[in-house]
């Protein structure tokens, strides 16, 4: 059983359609899992159900051995940190320091301990220099880093990112992806990331693909993103390496399926050195 275990989950916002339709998947402790799917496929709803922000209609969610129900809700929330898409919607404090302190204050952490926790977590997202800055003077990427520090301060075991990079510019995207990867590798946190970013998917351990509120594929990035036809059906972006491999095949060169360009170029080099 994984640290997140979702079984036969069901949910709908209204009576006309099922947003989540019998979804089951499992996330192993310490892994980096990505959830992919087009807008409206049910990705964000799944994240909110797992964090207990929405109430499921059927099925079960077990987090670290605890069944998600009204008795366990607060215990489970203390294990999960979630970062959302819009950097401007989740900045509460008047300065970076206040913002990171928000959760700690709610948990009545004593002042002397609080300073230390704030400093440690600002350091983890490289925002120490900005502790007294106001949000209006921060870039989107910086605000998202503060949001991450804020949830880290609560010492979660699981971090959920709901398209945390999709509203950022390329530089901000890179910053956040590096921070997430660093947290995963150094602190061994379990990461569940909802994303459209093909590079982030390629670097993850496990992929869950949703379409129309159902799990349509699970597996390694290679298994899920190796199938161009399925990707198109799911309205997902096809990695350039797959498109190029298809053109190569038309030109008479058959290659393996690669989800990165590096992999494909390496294979092409092997055929070349045989000439």
């Amino acid at each position, binding site marked *: 059983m994984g640290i997140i275990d979702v079984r036969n989950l069901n949910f709908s916002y209204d009576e006309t359609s099922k947003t989540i339709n019998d979804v089951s998947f499992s996330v192993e402790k310490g892994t980096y899992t990505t959830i992919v799917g*087009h*807008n*409206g496929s049910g990705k964000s709803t799944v994240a909110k159900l797992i964090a207990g922000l929405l109430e499921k209609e059927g099925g079960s969610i077990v987090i670290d051995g605890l069944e998600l129900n009204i008795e366990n809700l607060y215990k489970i929330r203390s294990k999960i940190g979630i970062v959302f*898409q819009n950097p401007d919607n989740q900045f509460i404090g008047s300065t970076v320091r206040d913002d990171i302190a928000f959760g700690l204050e709610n948990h009545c952490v004593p002042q002397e301990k609080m300073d230390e926790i704030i400093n440690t977590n600002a350091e983890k997202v490289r925002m120490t220099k900005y502790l007294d800055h106001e949000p209006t003077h921060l*870039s*989107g990427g910086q605000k998202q880093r503060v949001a991450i520090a804020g949830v880290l301060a609560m010492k979660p075991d699981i971090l959920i990112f709901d*398209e945390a990079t*999709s*509203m950022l*510019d*390329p*530089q*901000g995207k890179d910053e956040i992806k590096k921070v997430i990867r660093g947290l995963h590798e150094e602190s061994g946190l379990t990461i569940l990331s909802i994303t*459209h970013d093909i590079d982030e998917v390629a670097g993850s351990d496990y992929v869950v693909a949703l379409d129309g509120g159902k799990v349509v594929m699970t597996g390694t990035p290679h298994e899920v993103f190796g199938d161009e036809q399925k990707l198109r059906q799911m*309205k*997902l*972006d096809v990695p*350039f390496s797959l*498109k*190029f491999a298809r*053109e*190569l095949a*038309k*030109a*008479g*060169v*058959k290659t393996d399926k690669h989800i990165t*360009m*590096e992999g494909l*170029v390496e294979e*092409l*080099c092997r*055929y*070349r050195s*045989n*000439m």
Partner: protein
Amino acid sequence: MPISFEHVGHTYSVGTPFEYAALKDVNLDIREGKITAIIGMTGSGKSTLVQHLNALLLPTEGTIRILDRTITAGEKPKKLKSLRKDVGLVFQFPEYQLFEETVLKDVAFGPKNFGATEDEAAQRAAKALKQVGLPADIAKKSPLELSGGQKRRTAIAGILAMDPQILVLDEPTAGLDPAGTAVMMELFRTLNKEYGKTILIVTHDMEQVFRYCDDVVVVADGTIRTKMEVKDFFRDSSLCKSMNILPPALIRMKDMLTEKGFEIPEEIDDIKSLAECVAGQVNHG
């Protein structure tokens, strides 16, 4: 040239401790009937530049010519209302600005403001909804009932209903998934090719610039760093690299192959020719 900037500068909060020169000595010509991409890092001055295009901001230095109007720093500008009809500006996340009870009313708001009768405005709105590819039955719905992509198209229709000659869009695909992005970019291509609109798009996505745009303008530190045709801009990756821009996948692939000793001619700019070129250099069936 429908738009030209001559020595344009814009300084915010002149004479205060917050004085900040967001644009400095900008010289720029935008070609008519083309799709021009405006790229640059956050804080480079792109948004300030774009807001000059329909005189939401006025230059503090220099002269801007837009269609038949001239806006000179320090002089009282004329005919601004008609300028705002001719240059439609679509902000980031325009769907946040929908406010009417129905889609049709929301789209008809602009033309009515510019003096169209109720009937005319409704007709223009219906036409604009068709242009952005929304089905007719959506017109009577509340904007709140629409999906994210439909809301955004409704907001764009609201600008198109004023029948602008120039359409300026600030990151029109931000937050959309790949399929939604493709639909949106195809829409701009149609508006450009079939309806003859001159289009300017602020974007961070180099794949979009590469696939859909004719010209590219790079803004850096409040000035125009480069302006050229997209096909020249991406001829190789050196320009991109010098400006810290991730080139499109095809250009990165060309680079990687060249680095590994493949002979890839500079002028290849489509995936099919690149595949054929590589196929000729490997020994594999």
